[in-house]
C-alpha cells in the first residue's frame, strides 16, 4: 500500500468521527439523564425501535425474494429492475415521502380507495413503517443480490443434478451460502430504518407516540431546546453504533 494513502484516509475518517465528537462537546452531563428520560425521548425511542424492527422484517420478507429473483431469474430487463430497486437509495427521502403521499394519501389513486373503505394511512404508525421500508429495503435487496451473484451457482446446479428440487436446493444450498450477507444486510436495513427522516415527516406526519420517531423528535426538539436535541442525537448515535457493532461485526466484515 502506498504510504501517501494514509493522508486522505485519515481525512475521510476525521470527516466522520470529528462531527460526532462535536456532538459530545454540546452535551451537559448533568442534564443528560433528565433529557434522556423525558417522555418525548422515551416515546420516540420506543416508536423508532418498534417501527424499524417491523420495517426490517417486511424488507426481509419481500426484499429477500426480490433479491433472489434479480440474481437468479432469467428475465429480460433485469438491469432496469435493478436500477428501479436502487431508486430509493439515491432519491432525496422527501421525494420518497411525497411519492408515498400522492399514491396513498387521501387524494391519491390508491389512498382514495382505501379512504372509501375506511382505511387511512397518513398520520398512522403504519405509515412510518411504510416510509422506513421504502427507504431501507434496497439495502437488503442490494446486499443479498450481490452475495448471490458472487456465490458460486455451480453448487446449486450440482444439487439439481443430484435430484434436489428448486425449493430443497434453495433451502439447503443457497440459503446457507447467503447467511453472512444476510446478517450484514439486515443490520444495514435496520440502521437505515432507524435513521429515516424525510419520507416519514412528509408521509406520516409528526405526533408524539404515534409517528414522531427519534429523528423527527430530534428535529422538533431542536427548534426550542438544542441541548435536549443533542442528547437525543447522542442516543441515536449510540443505538446505531450498538446495532452495527454488536449485531454486525462478524457479518459486515469480510466478503459479505
Amino acid at each position: 500500500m502506498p504510504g501517501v494513502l494514509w493522508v486522505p484516509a485519515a481525512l475521510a475518517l476525521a470527516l466522520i468521527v470529528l462531527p460526532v465528537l462535536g456532538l459530545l462537546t454540546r452535551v451537559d452531563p448533568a442534564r443528560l439523564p433528565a433529557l434522556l428520560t423525558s417522555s418525548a425521548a422515551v416515546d420516540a425511542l420506543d416508536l423508532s425501535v418498534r417501527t424499524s424492527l417491523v420495517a426490517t422484517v417486511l424488507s426481509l420478507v419481500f426484499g429477500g425474494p426480490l433479491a433472489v429473483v434479480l440474481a437468479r431469474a432469467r428475465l429480460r430487463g433485469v438491469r432496469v429492475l435493478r436500477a428501479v430497486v436502487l431508486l430509493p437509495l439515491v432519491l432525496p427521502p422527501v421525494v420518497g415521502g411525497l411519492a408515498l403521499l400522492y399514491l396513498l394519501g387521501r387524494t391519491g389513486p390508491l389512498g382514495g380507495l382505501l379512504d372509501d373503505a375506511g382505511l387511512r394511512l397518513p398520520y398512522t404508525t403504519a405509515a412510518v413503517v411504510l416510509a422506513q421500508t421504502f427507504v431501507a429495503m434496497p439495502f437488503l435487496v442490494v446486499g443479498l443480490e450481490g452475495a448471490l451473484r458472487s456465490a458460486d451457482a455451480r453448487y446449486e446446479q450440482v444439487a439439481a443434478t443430484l435430484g434436489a428440487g428448486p425449493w430443497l436446493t434453495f433451502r439447503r444450498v443457497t440459503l446457507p451460502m447467503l447467511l453472512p450477507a444476510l446478517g450484514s444486510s439486515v443490520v444495514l436495513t435496520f440502521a437505515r430504518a432507524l435513521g429515516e427522516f424525510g419520507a416519514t415527516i412528509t408521509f406520516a406526519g409528526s405526533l408524539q407516540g404515534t409517528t414522531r420517531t427519534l429523528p423527527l423528535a430530534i428535529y422538533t426538539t431542536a427548534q426550542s431546546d438544542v441541548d435536549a436535541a443533542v442528547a437525543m442525537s447522542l442516543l441515536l448515535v449510540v443505538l446505531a453504533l450498538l446495532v452495527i457493532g454488536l449485531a454486525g461485526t462478524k457479518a459486515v466484515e469480510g466478503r459479505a
Partner: protein
Amino acid sequence: MIGSRVVVALAGFALLLAGCSAGGSEQAQGERTVTVLAAASLTESFDELAGRFEAENPGVRVQLDYAGSSTLVEQLTQGRRADVFASADTKNMDKASKAGVTGAEPQVFATNELTIAVPKGNPDHIASLADLNAPGRLVVQCAPQVPCGSAAQTVEQAAGLRINAASEENDVKSVLRKVTAGEADAGLVYVTDAKAAADQVQSVEFPESQRAINDYPIVSLKDAPEPELGARFLDYVRGPVGKEVLTAHGFGAE
C-alpha cells in the same frame, strides 16, 4: 519522504478549500449586499420589500434567507454573520439578545394571529375551534416547540379545549401544505399564510385568536458586514412602504 508527501497532499487540500471559498464570495464590482435573516412566515412580504428596496437603491442587493426563527437564532449564536434579523416571535429574539448577537434594542414591526385554514367552500362547515374536534375530523397544527405552535396552545387554553391534532408539524407552511394537498380537513395557520394561499384555502376566524397575537421584532446585528445598509433596510421595513406591504400581506403593522 512521507513527510513531504503529506505536506503536498495537505497543500492540495488547502488549495481546494481556498478555491471553494473564493468561488462562493464572487460578486459583481461595486455591488453591495445587505444580508437579512427572516422568519419563514415573512417570505412573501420580505421578497416584495427587498425588490422595492433594490429598485430604490441601485447597486444594492438584498440577500434574504428564510428559516424558522429558532434555526436562525441558532445559526447566529454559532457565528453566522448578517446585517438584519427579523423573528416571528419575541421569545427567539430574546434568545438572540441574550446570546449577545444583536446590535441594538429589537423593535416590533408587525403582528400576526392564527386562523383556521380550510379547503375552499369549507366542506366540513367548520365555524369555531370546537368544531375541529368533531369526530373523524383531520386537523393539523404546529408543534408547541415552534412559534405558531405555542400560539396554538395559547388559543386552545383560551377556548378551554385541546385539539386532537393528527400531526404536529415543525412549521406553519407544512400545516398549510397538508390542507392545500387535501390531506387535512383543517389546519391552524397564521392569517398571513392563509392569505398567501387564498386561491386554495379560505380562513375561518375565531375570537380566541386575539389571545395569542404574535409580535414580530426586527433588529440590526452586532458585527454586521454592512451596518449602514442594514440600518437603512430596517428603517425601510418600519417605514411607510414596509407598513403598506406588510398590511397587504395580512400582517398587523402599526
